[in-house]
């Protein structure tokens, strides 16, 4: 085995491990931020400042009994959380999170900080996002419970509706970036306008960024669009009947999807690992800061905004967001043709 291959395998395992970790960190951050927004303390007993709370949660979940409804379709009931979790992990494989590096001269040639450099990366993310609907839909159907079924149906309707705006917002960035590869798009955002404003696509695509963010929240089923699991109406939606580790897998998938959506937004709109002050080789620090800021925004929004009504969600998605996204795409294409950005 060449050192390069070992480095690549190591990188893959590292990404996998860090994604698992990020879910644990996000659980802690979510609980802490929620507590502060509601003037509580949040978890503080397990470990210093409650930092070991996610670990305690995991242990608790592992020792819970694995329940299965009698009338459930056992095969699909077991398969659904696996689909959800593996789609969540798979999507991050094509996301670059740093410039090419030799690890301070350890390797003979630089490797990309990315698991797989696919030249249609943006579409791969989109494809995997569209596959992850199945996890939720099948969970809802196979549980054989009316709340689960309603949650599953809602989620498929919601994800199909918002996928269109999501894809159209992505497409307008592709037009500006003139590439389907995430690495190329990030590299197109290096440098500055007038030596001050960074050349991030958010300044060219402010509307596209907002549409992407909104549709991203809907795609990850987070509040204020958390209809598939609306507690007050559907108990817990599609995962009502799940317990123990299969429930944990849905939980994990939700947080990893959040991380992936934020990471993709960082790559597409916020210049990826490009930023002032730090050298290129430490660009991943900028990447982490930007992803962290977006994730905080997600949590902040969840505890600030109440849930919409279901018909409001559909009206907003089809009658406001999608036309806006289409107009944005047309305007972008016209602008690129006219000015030749």
């Amino acid at each position, binding site marked *: 085995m060449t050192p390069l291959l070992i480095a690549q395998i190591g990188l893959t395992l590292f990404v996998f491990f860090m994604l698992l970790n990020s879910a644990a960190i996000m659980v802690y951050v979510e609980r802490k931020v929620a507590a502060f927004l509601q003037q509580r303390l949040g978890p503080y007993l397990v470990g210093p400042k409650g930092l070991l709370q996610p670990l305690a949660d995991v242990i608790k979940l592992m020792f819970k009994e694995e329940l299965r409804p009698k009338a459930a379709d056992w095969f699909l009931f077991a398969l659904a959380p696996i689909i959800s979790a593996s789609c969540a992990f798979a999507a991050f494989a094509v996301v670059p999170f740093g410039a090419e590096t030799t690890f301070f001269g350890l390797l003979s040639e630089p490797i990309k900080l990315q698991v797989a450099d*696919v030249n*249609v990366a943006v579409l791969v993310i989109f*494809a995997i996002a*569209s596959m992850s609907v199945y996890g939720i*839909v099948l969970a809802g159907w196979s549980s054989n419970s009316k709340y689960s*079924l309603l949650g599953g149906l809602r989620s498929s309707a919601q994800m199909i509706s918002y996928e269109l705006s999501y894809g159209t917002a992505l497409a307008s960035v592709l037009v500006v970036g003139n590439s389907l590869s995430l690495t190329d798009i990030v590299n197109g955002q290096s440098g500055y306008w007038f030596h001050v404003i960074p050349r991030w696509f958010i300044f060219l695509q402010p509307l596209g960024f907002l549409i992407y963010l909104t549709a991203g929240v809907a795609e990850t089923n987070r509040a204020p669009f958390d209809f598939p699991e609306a507690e007050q109406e559907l108990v817990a939606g599609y995962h009502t009947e799940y317990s123990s580790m299969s429930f944990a897998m849905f939980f994990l998938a939700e947080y990893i999807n959040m991380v992936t959506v934020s990471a993709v937004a960082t790559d597409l709109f916020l210049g990826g690992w490009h930023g002032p002050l730090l050298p290129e080789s430490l660009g991943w620090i900028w990447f982490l800061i930007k992803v962290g800021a977006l994730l905080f925004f997600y949590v902040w929004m969840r505890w600030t905004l109440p849930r919409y009504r279901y018909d409001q969600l559909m009206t907003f998605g089809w009658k406001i967001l999608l036309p806006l996204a289409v107009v944005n795409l047309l305007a972008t294409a016209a602008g690129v043709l006219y000015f030749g950005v």
Partner: protein
Amino acid sequence: MTLFYLFGAVAVIASLLVIAQRNPIYSVLLLIASFGALSGLYVLLDAPFVAVTQIIVYAGAIMVLFLFVVMLLNAPHEETEHDEKIHPLRRPGAMRFGAVLAAALVVELLWALTRSSGEPGAFGATAVSSVRELGRVLFTEYAFPFEVTSVLILVAMVGAVVLAKRDPRAHT
């Protein structure tokens, strides 16, 4: 070549199981598996764009709608079960018509497969792997079929809305 046989086998077996299943939900899922294997074959053909589009359009968008409908109807079994106990010649017209169509398909497939395959056209693998080239060809050379297809889909959509919104009292 191993990968080709792997994906090919998955695609063929999954497709066969689609029609062998009693439960429509499993049929839908197996069809998705078959589409996934097809997409793998496209990757082997050096056409990642087509592969990903296959997943997005067929496995992602269209099959979700199929699943949606099957779930809403909540049909655990096909409705043909009691028909299968009848003598083949006395089954309902739709089934006999289906058999005729299936036979026609088999004949067509045999005809197509036994023909000597000529050289692949100018639109080779390198052209398909480049998104830019694909877009250019689609909007110049194949612009007419492309636009006609979109009109066809529009017609189907309008038809579906008309059928769904039709007032049943209007006919009586």
